[in-house]
C-alpha cells in the first residue's frame, strides 16, 4: 500500500464533519448584525443550540460591531460586544472614532411548540454608558420548515422609532455607568418591530425586517448615517455549520455586511478524538497454565527496578508521559506519571495501564496510577490488572471499568521508590513566538523566552521575558483612577516594558496531608506585582466542593519590566477565602471573599461552563467597597473569559489552548494578583469531577 488510506479517511471524515449542512427540518435561530440571535438588526425569539459559541463582525456603514456570544444553557445566552463608530466627528468636532463595549443577556422564556411561538426577553448593553442600550421581548414562530415570522416590542434604542407610548413610565438617564442599569430597563417609549426569514435551501436565507431603532445617536446627533427607511433586507449564505455571511440593504441608505464564525464546543472540529490507536492490553498467561510466571521472586533481583522503569518509560514516552516515580511489590505497582501531552486525564491513565500490562511481571495484580501535577500527586487511580484484561473488548467497557476502579487521595510517594534522575534537577528553556491580545485582533505579537529549573518534585524556579515585535494597540491613555494604579497603568507597562521580565518565581507545591494541598510562590509574580503568594486548598478527590485560602504580600513593580520598585511606592497585603463548587454538567462556580490589590474589600462570583474536551467559557464579577464613581466608567470589575483547546480544533496531541479574558472596562478595584498554577484548576482534571465526564477515553 503506497498511501495511508486511513489518514485520508480520517481527514475526509473531518471534512464531512465541518462541511455537512444542518438538516433542513431543524431551523435553529440565526445571528444578526449584533452577533445575537435575530434577524438583520433586530433580535428574535429564537435561541442558538445549547453551548453555541459565536464570533461575529457586523458592519453598518461607518459602524462596526464585533461580538462574542455564548449560549450558556438551552435558554440563557450572553454577548460581549466591541463597537466602533467612525466619522464620529462629522458634525460635532472631536475624536474621529468612538468605541464602546457592551454586554447583553437573553433568556428564552418560552420554547416554540406546535402552536406557541418561541419567546425571548433580552437586555442589550445592560451595564455601560447606554449608547447601545435596549430591552425587548420578541416572539418567533416557524411555519413549515422554511419560514419564520418574528414580532417584538422594544425599549431604549429599540423603542426609538414610531413608539406606542411608555407603558412602564419614563426612562431615566444612565447613572452611574458600569453598573446594571436596572432603573432604565423596559422604561420609556416602547416600539414594535417585526421581520421574516425565509430559507431558500441549506445555504441561502432571505431576511426582511421593520426596525424600531431610529438611530438617533448616529443619524440625528452625529450625522454619520442617514436613516431614510425603517425597512432592511438582505440575503445570508451559510457555508457548513461554522461560517455564515450576510449582505443587507439597511435603512434605505447603507450597505450592511455580516460575518459569523459559529462553533459548537461540544463537538470536536475533527469529528472525534484523533490520534493513533493505543497499544492493546497484554494478556498474562493463565495461572493454571504457567504458575511460574506468577512467582513473585523477581522482586528480590537488584536490577529489576531500573529495568522495569526503563521499559515502562520507553512505552510511555510515545504518549508524552514521563515517570516521576516507580514503586512495586510482588503484587502491586505504583507509578507516578507526568502527563505532558494528552488532553484527557482518563486517556493518560488508560495508556499508562496498558503500558504497565506489558512491562510488569504477571504477579503484579494491582496498578496504582498517580498523575502528578507540579510535583504533587493529584489523585490515585487503582485498577485491577485482571479487570483491564477482562474488559478490553467487552461491550460498554468504560462503564464497567469505572465501576471496578477506585479514585482516592494520592498520599505520599512510597518510601522505596525509583525516582527519575533525568527529571530532577532539570533545566528547560524555550524561545517561542507569542501573542498578547487585549481584545480580538488587537494587541501585540512578540517573542517569549521562558526557562524553568526543577530542583525537586514540587520545587521549581521559573521565569519568562517577553519582547514585543509589533503592536496595533491604541496608544496608552493616562490613568485618571483615584485608586492606587494597580491595573490601570497597563498601557504604560505595555509601552515601557520592551523587553520585560514577565515573571521570575520560586514556587513550592506540596500535598502535606490527605485532601490538603499547598502552594507558596515567591518573586516577580506577574508584570505589575511582585512578592509572595501562599495558598492552601482542601479538595477531597470525590468531592464537588473545595475550599481554599490565599494570602499575598506584594509590591508594585516598575513599568519598564525590570527588577525595580522605585516608580510606585505601593505594597499591599491581599487575601481571600474561596469556595469552589462543581454543580455538575460542566458548570463550575467559585466565590472569593477578601481584600483586593487596591486595598478594597469585597467578593468575586464566577461561573464557568467547562467542557470535557477543554473548552471553557465563563463570566465573573467583583464587587468591592470601591464606589462605582471611584472605579471609573466600568462601575465594578466584571468580564468574560474563554479557552479554546488546540486539540479540539486541530486534533494534535497538545494540552495547550487559546484563551482570553475580556472586560468592558478595567479599573483598579476588585483586582487580584495574577499567580501561575493556582491549586484548584491544576488538580481538578485528575479528581473524579474532572475524570468522569470523558472517562470513556480511558480505552482510547
Amino acid at each position, binding site marked *: 500500500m503506497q498511501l495511508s488510506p*486511513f489518514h*485520508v479517511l*480520517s481527514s475526509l471524515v473531518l471534512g464531512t464533519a465541518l462541511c455537512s449542512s444542518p438538516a433542513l427540518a431543524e431551523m435553529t435561530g440565526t445571528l444578526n448584525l449584533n452577533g445575537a440571535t435575530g434577524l438583520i438588526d433586530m433580535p428574535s425569539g429564537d435561541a442558538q443550540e445549547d453551548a453555541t459559541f459565536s464570533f461575529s463582525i457586523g458592519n453598518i456603514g461607518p459602524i462596526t460591531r464585533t461580538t462574542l456570544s455564548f449560549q450558556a444553557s438551552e435558554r440563557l445566552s450572553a454577548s460581549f460586544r466591541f463597537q466602533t463608530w467612525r466619522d464620529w466627528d462629522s458634525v460635532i468636532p472631536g475624536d474621529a472614532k468612538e468605541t464602546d463595549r457592551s454586554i447583553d443577556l437573553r433568556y428564552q422564556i418560552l420554547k416554540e411548540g406546535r402552536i406557541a411561538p418561541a419567546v425571548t426577553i433580552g437586555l442589550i448593553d445592560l451595564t455601560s454608558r447606554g449608547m447601545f442600550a435596549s430591552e425587548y421581548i420578541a416572539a418567533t414562530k416557524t411555519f413549515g420548515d422554511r419560514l419564520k415570522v418574528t414580532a417584538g416590542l422594544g425599549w431604549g434604542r429599540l423603542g426609538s422609532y414610531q413608539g406606542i407610548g411608555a407603558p412602564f413610565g419614563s426612562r431615566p438617564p444612565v447613572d452611574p455607568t458600569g453598573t446594571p442599569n436596572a432603573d432604565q430597563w423596559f422604561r420609556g417609549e416602547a416600539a414594535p418591530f417585526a421581520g421574516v426569514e425565509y430559507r431558500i435551501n441549506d445555504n441561502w436565507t432571505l431576511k426582511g425586517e421593520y426596525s424600531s431603532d431610529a438611530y438617533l445617536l448616529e443619524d440625528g446627533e452625529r450625522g454619520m448615517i442617514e436613516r431614510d427607511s425603517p425597512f432592511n433586507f438582505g440575503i445570508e449564505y451559510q457555508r457548513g455549520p461554522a461560517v455564515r455571511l450576510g449582505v443587507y440593504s439597511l435603512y434605505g441608505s447603507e450597505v450592511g455586511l455580516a460575518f459569523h464564525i459559529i462553533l459548537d464546543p461540544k463537538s470536536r472540529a475533527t469529528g472525534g478524538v484523533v490520534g493513533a490507536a493505543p497499544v492493546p492490553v497484554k494478556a498474562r498467561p493463565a495461572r493454571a497454565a504457567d504458575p511460574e510466571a506468577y512467582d513473585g521472586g523477581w522482586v528480590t533481583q537488584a536490577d529489576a527496578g531500573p529495568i522495569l522503569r526503563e521499559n515502562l518509560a520507553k512505552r510511555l514516552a510515545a504518549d508524552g508521559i514521563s515517570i516521576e516515580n516507580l514503586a512495586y511489590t510482588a503484587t502491586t505497582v505504583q507509578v507516578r506519571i507526568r502527563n505532558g501531552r494528552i488532553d484527557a486525564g482518563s486517556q493518560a491513565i488508560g495508556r499508562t495501564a496498558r503500558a504497565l500490562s506489558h512491562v510488569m511481571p504477571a504477579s503484579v495484580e494491582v496498578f496504582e496510577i498517580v498523575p502528578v501535577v507540579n510535583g504533587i500527586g493529584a489523585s490515585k487511580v487503582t485498577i485491577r490488572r485482571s479487570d483491564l484484561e477482562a474488559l478490553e*473488548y467487552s461491550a460498554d467497557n468504560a462503564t464497567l471499568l469505572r465501576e471496578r476502579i477506585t479514585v482516592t487521595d494520592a498520599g505520599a510517594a512510597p518510601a522505596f521508590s525509583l525516582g527519575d534522575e533525568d527529571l530532577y534537577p532539570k533545566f528547560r528553556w524555550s524561545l517561542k513566538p507569542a501573542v498578547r491580545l487585549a481584545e480580538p485582533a488587537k494587541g501585540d505579537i512578540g517573542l517569549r523566552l521562558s526557562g524553568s529549573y526543577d530542583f525537586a518534585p514540587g520545587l521549581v524556579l521559573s521565569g519568562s521575558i517577553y519582547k514585543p515585535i509589533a503592536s496595533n494597540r491604541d496608544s496608552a491613555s493616562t490613568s485618571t483612577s483615584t485608586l492606587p494604579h494597580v491595573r490601570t497603568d497597563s498601557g504604560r507597562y505595555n509601552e515601557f516594558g520592551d523587553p520585560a521580565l514577565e515573571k521570575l518565581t520560586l514556587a513550592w507545591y506540596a500535598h502535606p496531608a490527605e485532601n490538603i494541598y499547598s502552594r507558596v510562590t515567591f518573586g516577580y509574580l506577574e508584570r505589575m506585582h511582585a512578592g509572595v503568594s501562599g495558598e492552601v486548598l482542601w479538595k477531597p478527590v470525590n468531592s464537588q466542593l473545595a475550599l481554599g485560602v490565599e494570602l499575598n504580600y506584594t509590591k508594585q513593580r516598575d513599568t519598564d519590566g525590570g527588577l525595580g520598585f522605585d516608580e510606585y511606592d505601593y505594597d499591599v497585603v491581599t487575601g481571600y477565602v474561596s469556595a469552589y463548587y462543581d454543580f455538575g454538567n*460542566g458548570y463550575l462556580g467559585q466565590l472569593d471573599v477578601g481584600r483586593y490589590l487596591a486595598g478594597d474589600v469585597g467578593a468575586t462570583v464566577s461561573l464557568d461552563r467547562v467542557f470535557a474536551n477543554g473548552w471553557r467559557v465563563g463570566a465573573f464579577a467583583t464587587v468591592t467597597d470601591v464606589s462605582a464613581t471611584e472605579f471609573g466608567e466600568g462601575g465594578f470589575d466584571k468580564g468574560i473569559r474563554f479557552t479554546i483547546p488546540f486539540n479540539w480544533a486541530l*486534533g494534535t496531541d497538545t494540552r495547550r489552548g487559546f484563551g482570553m479574558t475580556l472586560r468592558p472596562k478595567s479599573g483598579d478595584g476588585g483586582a487580584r494578583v495574577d499567580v501561575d498554577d493556582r491549586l484548584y484548576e491544576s488538580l481538578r482534571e485528575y479528581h473524579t469531577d474532572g475524570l468522569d465526564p*470523558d472517562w470513556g*477515553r480511558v480505552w482510547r
Partner: protein
Amino acid sequence: MKPVAGLALLAVLAACGSEKSGPNPMVSAIGAMAKDSVAKVKARKAGGKSGGKSVSVEERRAALEKAGKPILRVSSTTLGQTGFLTVLDAKGDVLTWKTPDGATFSQRSGVLIQTRGLGADLMSAEAPSVGQLMRAGTSYQRIYYFLGDDDQGTRRTYDCTSAIIGKESIEVLGRTHHATHVSETCERPLGKLTNDYWIEGTSIRQSRQWVSGAIGYIEFQRVID
C-alpha cells in the same frame, strides 16, 4: 514595525528550546492537511485502486502471501480507499487489525466491535456472534458505544434480525470463495442500518459493516487466513 512585517517574521521563526516538545500544532495540522490533499489526488489518479500502476491482482496476492501473515483488506467504497491490514493483537476470538498509520479495527470472529484512530470511533459494541447471525429470523439487541458530544460516552441501541440471502460466489483478491450471504437488519426509532456478511463455513470471509455516523460503512475481506 508594521504588524504585517512582524507577522511575517513570526512565521519564519520556529520555536526552539531544550525540550523536544511536539511540533507547533498549527504548523503540523497544516502539514497534515497538505499531505492529505496530495494523498487524495494520488488516490484519484490511481482510480481508487490501491497501489495503482500495473501490479496485477495475482502479483499482489503473491506478495502478500510471501509475508506469511494473516491479511484483512479494508475498504470504504464512499472514499475509494483500500488498505491491507495485519494482526496487531489476538485474544481469544478477538483479532485487532492495524493500518500502517496507526488506526485499528477489532473484530470478534469477524464481527466489528471496536475501532481506534478514525476520529469518530466505535469504542465498544454488543454484537452478535456468527452463530447468532446464522440463526435467521430470531431477533436480538445490538448496542454501539461511542464517544459523543463533549467526549462523553453515548450509545445507539438497535433491534436486529438476520436473514440468509443465499449461497454466493465471491472473489477476494483473485480467489473465488463460496459463501453464505447473511444480511443483518437493525432498527431503532431514529434509523435503520444493514450489515452484510459472507460466511464461509463458520467464519466470515467478507463483510460490509456499519462503523459510526461519520464513517458510515466499511468493507472487510479476509484475504489471507
